[in-house]
């Protein structure tokens, strides 16, 4: 920083031209595969993951049609097993986690007032790796080698003895791909939020959505290694006869459950916490007032992050654990209700003291309150061991986790999509269709999943492909199927809304909702460089607290991709940091990674063969000419 008088302001048109020359992606197909623009990559991520949401939803519909009446012959047991496994795996690994991260990858850099994520090429690599893993799972399913051991692939069922063939191996490698992608995105989000915040955005002014993404990213950092290790060990058991999970040679199937759920339970919060961030953003904007209890909300997010790691054993109450362990995990499972409750009360207080505007994003948030509270209550019920033993592996559990996952995450996500769609595309989604979308989804959802509580209490086990008429489960199952069809119609309404609004939607302008966070300070959709001028943040609600003539940062070079790094706590300007431009190497490295993992399904030499490609791609990446190195940069 200097005490010199500020240079004469550059005309905005000139500034736009200079910045766009430095930041825009190359054109055409080459540009499409080499871009490192976080907005393009995140948009691609959102579209891809949403496509997998539709595919996973179609599988759910097939399951509901099969279960609509007793002894239905629509699909046989083998196909049904593949369907529920691929449905669960798709929704967890190819939709819920990546779409939340994608929203973060799009919004976090804009919200903290910078121009791109901290490692743009790594970001591109993450997307390509995710895509290869996703195509592997669905390619396998289409070719009738879809995994069939359930989305948590319990050993010994998933081991070499009971699951010969390559179905489970495809599942295990899909895990590795998607978890690498998730970890990459987590590193991006933390580094960007810690180092690239606009000056003035000290930790007590970070938007709640960014806080939520940071907590999520830390949970990913500590949870995903468990499932990568476990799926790697499972693949080794199947490929080279190790005995990690083989009791005949001293291995232990329960070891799998511990490792899987050490990941699997935090996973629930990895999906849920970003949604809480979206709820906070939407509640603030649509109640037109500063959110109530910002410190309590931040601390609740962090507390949820910690407690989320102390719950995994409650998935294993039926395995005969020591009683002391059961007590501990029951207590921890109930404790998680405390931060969740604190947040709900803070949101209610905000609504209470605000002037709520019932637009579609806010409707989805209200839908979230209703459904998530029900899911949370059944969660407290099944935290108790005796009750859990009663309903273990029944449809009660299916009902519970769909209430928390759809209620807790998909409702806020749709709210978020309606809320940020104008920022992504420059056009608003239609409100009337939005209301139809919400009410159909809300009614369909409750009609589908509420009866499952009752079915579970009546003893209907999950993962059965059919049942006998004498059980009396037919009518409630039919109701659930009708609900599923209504949900499908709701999704069709959403797709129609998107298709129509992309062409004919009302022009949004920079800030159609009168919101408080920085992504609304730039144009919709944002230009290649994000913000024309890096803002100086003057308060917690950046756009509500800034001067009429807002202060900005000057002095970043515009002839290359330069961003400002600030200090981690106080966000004071620290140094300038040059980011790389478009490159084909991330795709090359992702393909090399793909060769490694896919050949490893068939031979242990895959690691060596693929390792050579990976090594070459890493070298290519490292020695790539650096278009961003300006003259005089050499230190």
């Amino acid at each position: 920083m200097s005490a010199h008088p500020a240079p004469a302001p550059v005309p905005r048109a000139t500034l736009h031209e200079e910045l766009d020359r430095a930041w825009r992606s190359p054109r055409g197909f080459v540009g499409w595969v080499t871009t490192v623009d976080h907005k393009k990559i995140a948009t691609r991520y959102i579209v891809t993951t949403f496509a997998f949401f539709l595919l996973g939803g179609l599988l759910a519909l097939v399951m509901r049609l099969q279960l609509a009446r007793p002894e239905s012959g629509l699909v046989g047991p083998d196909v049904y097993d593949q369907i529920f496994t691929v449905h669960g795996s798709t929704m967890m690994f190819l939709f819920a986690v990546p779409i939340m991260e994608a929203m973060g990858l799009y919004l976090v850099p804009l919200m903290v007032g910078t121009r791109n994520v901290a490692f743009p090429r790594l970001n591109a690599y993450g997307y390509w790796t995710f895509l290869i893993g996703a195509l592997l799972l669905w390619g396998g399913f289409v070719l009738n080698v879809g995994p069939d051991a359930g989305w948590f692939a319990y050993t010994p069922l998933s081991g070499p003895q009971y699951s010969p063939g390559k179905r489970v191996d495809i599942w295990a490698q899909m895990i590795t791909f998607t978890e690498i992608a998730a970890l990459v995105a987590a590193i991006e989000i933390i580094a960007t939020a810690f180092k690239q915040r606009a000056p003035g955005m000290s930790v007590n002014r970070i938007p709640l959505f960014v806080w939520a993404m940071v907590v999520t990213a830390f949970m990913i950092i500590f949870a995903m290694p468990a499932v990568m290790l476990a799926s790697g060990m499972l693949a080794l058991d199947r490929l080279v006869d190790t005995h990690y999970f083989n009791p005949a040679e001293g291995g232990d199937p329960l070891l799998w459950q511990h490792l899987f759920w050490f990941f699997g339970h935090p996973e629930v919060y990895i999906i849920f916490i970003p949604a809480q961030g979206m709820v906070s953003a939407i509640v603030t904007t649509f109640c037109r007032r500063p959110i109530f209890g910002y410190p309590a909300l931040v601390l609740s997010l962090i507390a949820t992050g910690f407690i989320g790691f102390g719950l995994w054993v409650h998935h294993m109450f039926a395995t005969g654990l020591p009683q002391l362990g059961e007590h501990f995990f029951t207590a921890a499972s109930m404790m998680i209700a405390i931060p969740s409750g604190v947040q709900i009360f803070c949101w209610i207080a905000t609504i209470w003291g605000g002037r709520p505007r019932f637009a579609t994003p806010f409707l989805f948030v209200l839908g979230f309150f209703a459904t998530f509270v029900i899911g949370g209550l059944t969660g407290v019920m099944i935290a108790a061991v005796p009750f859990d033993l009663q309903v273990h592996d029944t449809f009660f559990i299916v009902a519970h986790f769909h209430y928390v996952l759809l209620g807790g995450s998909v409702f806020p996500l749709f709210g978020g999509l309606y809320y940020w769609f104008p920022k992504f595309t420059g056009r608003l989604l239609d409100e009337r269709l939005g209301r139809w979308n919400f009410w159909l989804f809300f009614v369909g959802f409750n009609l589908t999943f509420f009866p499952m509580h009752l079915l579970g209490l009546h003893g209907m086990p999950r993962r059965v492909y059919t049942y006998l008429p004498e059980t009396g489960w037919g009518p409630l199952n039919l109701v659930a199927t009708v609900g599923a069809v209504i949900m499908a119609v709701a999704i069709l309404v959403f797709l129609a809304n998107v298709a129509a609004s992309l062409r004919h939607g009302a022009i949004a302008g920079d800030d159609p909702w009168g919101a408080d966070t920085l992504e609304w300070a730039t144009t919709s959709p944002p230009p290649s460089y994000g913000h024309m001028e890096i803002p100086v943040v003057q308060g917690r609600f950046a756009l509500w607290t800034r001067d009429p003539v807002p202060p900005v940062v000057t002095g970043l070079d515009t002839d290359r991709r330069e961003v400002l790094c600030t200090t981690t706590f106080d966000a004071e300007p620290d140094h300038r940091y040059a980011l790389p431009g478009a490159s084909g190497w991330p795709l090359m490295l992702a393909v090399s990674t793909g060769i490694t993992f896919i050949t490893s399904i068939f031979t242990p030499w895959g690691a060596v063969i693929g390792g050579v490609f990976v090594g070459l791609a890493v070298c290519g990446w490292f020695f790539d000419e650096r278009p961003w190195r300006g003259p005089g940069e050499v230190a």
Partner: protein
Amino acid sequence: MRTRAAIDVSELPLVGFGHRAPQWWAQLLIVAIEGTMFGLATWAYLYMRLDFAHWPPAGTPVPDLGAGTANVLLLVASVVPMVRLQRLAPRGSQAELTFWMVVSTLIGVAALVLRAFEFPAFHVRWDTNGYGSLVWLILGLHTFHLIAETGEEIVLTGYLFVKPLDGKHRIDLEVNSLYWYFIVGTWVPLYTLLYFGPRIL
């Protein structure tokens, strides 16, 4: 929209070292990821111990200490040149840094050679029993890190020979040291576990 120039950053440095650098944070997070993996593998080893009456299982001898002990001593000693390298990274000359990178790379290669003798020292195959599987998992995971890190050092050293050093690559050298500390720091407890676990557990 009119704006007001409030902060001029044109004279700020082009590079920040230590926790000021985004790369430092990324390296720290990678260490957290892989440290978690090693921690869980250790936990799995101890968990599986509970399934056996004897450790190592009857018929498997305890591991020979020679190669492993030599290697752990080498790795601990390697921290000294690495600290030197880390301190020099922000300001050292290209010649100095190249020299210390060559030293570090040679240490990495030596550690890999010694590691090749460690696998047979356990007298157990990965497919013999659960004990053997876990030993190979931990040894294999750590060796994978050692290979990756040594490969990275070879590439970085090669770079120093052919290209002029800039600020960005000085940070690369600095975070490379951090990664090496992690590899040494995890191996000391893992060595203790693998070589003395069978003797005392």
